[in-house]
């Protein structure tokens, strides 16, 4: 390969890397003050390190080019100055960067009186999301999809049910671990409406890679509408087929782990399904919520997401049809 072509190829590859800088899951595309501070910190560190590297290379190149040995006394004096300078510069740079880190993350732990509190609990391998409220009938549960109003601080209280997980929505904030028996919290504000993807950032078992969540930031009015819709009980079946689906959900093993408010299913081990079809994804970001995907998931969850805690429940083809018809209607 000619040198010119190699250079062009390298340039092309570098350009491809730039695609990682934006998108719905990228720390390089910050959408709030907390993420922006982290982004600035990243560039500060990268810039400083690049500058030091360039300076060292420059000095090295000069030394190689000059190839002159000064008298011993002069050389000794110069090396003392060089070593002293390097030590001073190191101390200065480390102190400066430490201070910059402190400044960047100091505001993250500051409390906000009007913050919207959301509790997120990590399970193997999905997220339970609670919107608490002083009035118990105004708090509700959902899973894997967090809706937040734009412009209002959001305080996410983090906990874990089984092993250590980590909450990370790169566009919005840094990582925060979810540790069983220990309460962590994360506060951030989103300024742009949009959908941001997050992921578990602490290895938590076989399906760690398939533990995603969505943060949907919307204008306050839309958020209130969504909240009111979530507070409602599940959509009553509208067709005989869906009614049969609801009956199956109650008598089969589903209700042992899942809740559908307004029916007899009231299990608490799996995600709340009351408004399952209002979410975009199934099984923590694995499948879109469509009737086909729902049927496939129920028919054989262990092949789609091996190791997860949902057993295969024996259902005939007709029962599967009815159940998926009912679930896809739970808007």
């Amino acid at each position: 390969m000619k040198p010119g072509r190699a250079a062009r190829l390298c340039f092309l590859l570098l350009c491809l890397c730039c695609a990682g800088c934006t998108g719905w899951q990228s720390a390089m595309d910050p959408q709030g003050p907390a993420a922006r501070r982290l982004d600035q910190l990243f560039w500060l560190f990268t810039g400083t390190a690049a500058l030091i590297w360039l300076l060292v290379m420059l000095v090295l190149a000069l030394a190689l080019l000059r190839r002159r040995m000064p008298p011993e006394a002069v050389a000794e004096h110069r090396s003392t100055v060089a070593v002293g300078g390097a030590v001073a510069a190191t101390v200065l740079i480390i102190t400066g960067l430490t201070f910059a880190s402190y400044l960047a993350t100091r505001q993250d732990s500051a409390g906000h009186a009007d913050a919207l509190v959301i509790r997120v609990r990590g399970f193997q391998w999905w997220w339970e999301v609670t919107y608490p409220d002083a009035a118990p009938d105004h708090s509700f549960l959902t899973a894997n999809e967090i809706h937040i109003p734009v412009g209002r601080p959001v305080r996410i209280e983090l906990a874990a049910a089984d092993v250590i997980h980590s909450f990370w929505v790169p566009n919005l904030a840094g990582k925060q671990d979810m540790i069983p028996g220990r309460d962590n919290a994360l506060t951030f504000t989103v300024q742009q409406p949009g959908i941001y993807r997050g992921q578990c950032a602490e290895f938590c078992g076989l399906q760690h890679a398939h533990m995603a969540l969505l943060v949907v930031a919307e204008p306050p009015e839309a958020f209130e509408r969504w909240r009111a819709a979530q507070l409602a009980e599940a959509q009553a079946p509208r067709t005989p087929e869906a009614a049969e689906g609801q009956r199956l959900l109650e008598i089969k093993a589903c209700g042992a782990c899942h809740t559908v408010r307004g029916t007899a299913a009231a299990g608490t081990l799996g995600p709340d399904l009351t408004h399952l079809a209002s979410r975009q994804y199934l099984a923590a970001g694995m499948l879109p919520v469509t009737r086909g995907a729902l049927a496939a998931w129920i028919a054989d969850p262990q092949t789609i997401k091996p190791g997860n805690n949902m057993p295969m429940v024996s259902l005939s083809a007709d029962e599967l049809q009815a159940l998926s018809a009912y679930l896809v209607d739970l808007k």
Partner: protein
Amino acid sequence: MTALRCAALVVLALAGCKQEERAMRLDPPIAEAMDAVALMPDGIGGRPPEVHVAMGNPYRGNAYQISQGKRLYEWFNCRGCHADGGGGSGPALMDGWWRYGPDLVSIYVSIRDGRPNGMPPFRDRLTPEQIWQLTGYIQMMGAYSASAAAPGRNDRMFSRPSENRAPAAAPAPGQP
């Protein structure tokens, strides 16, 4: 000569590639045939389906199948009555005493059809394959003998020895 030795080593190392087989899901006709147990008229003891014999009794010696059985034990709340095997409102499963016999078929039928005085039937909740996995696990738990195949580790505190562990040797006379 060195090349020959290297080749021999490589061939030996290849043996490490062999993994225990995991049958994720049975073929539907086999799964259906797995339910055809021949049972004695009194509901105790019988013969496993021929396909089970043909498959070489996979639910007792295969670590994956035993692990699945253990997960089903949790998922379907066997613990609710039988506790960790020690028994609660249901009988103990690990004291070596079986009301309906220790063989696989009796355990299978107990789970599938239920038994008097409280054991519910799981016919509609589990597939025959899942009942077999559970059967294998329960028989192993009750056997209380050493085994090379072990299920997964407990997620909660251990309230009894591991399923694949032999009982501690009885102390010799005169020893504390």
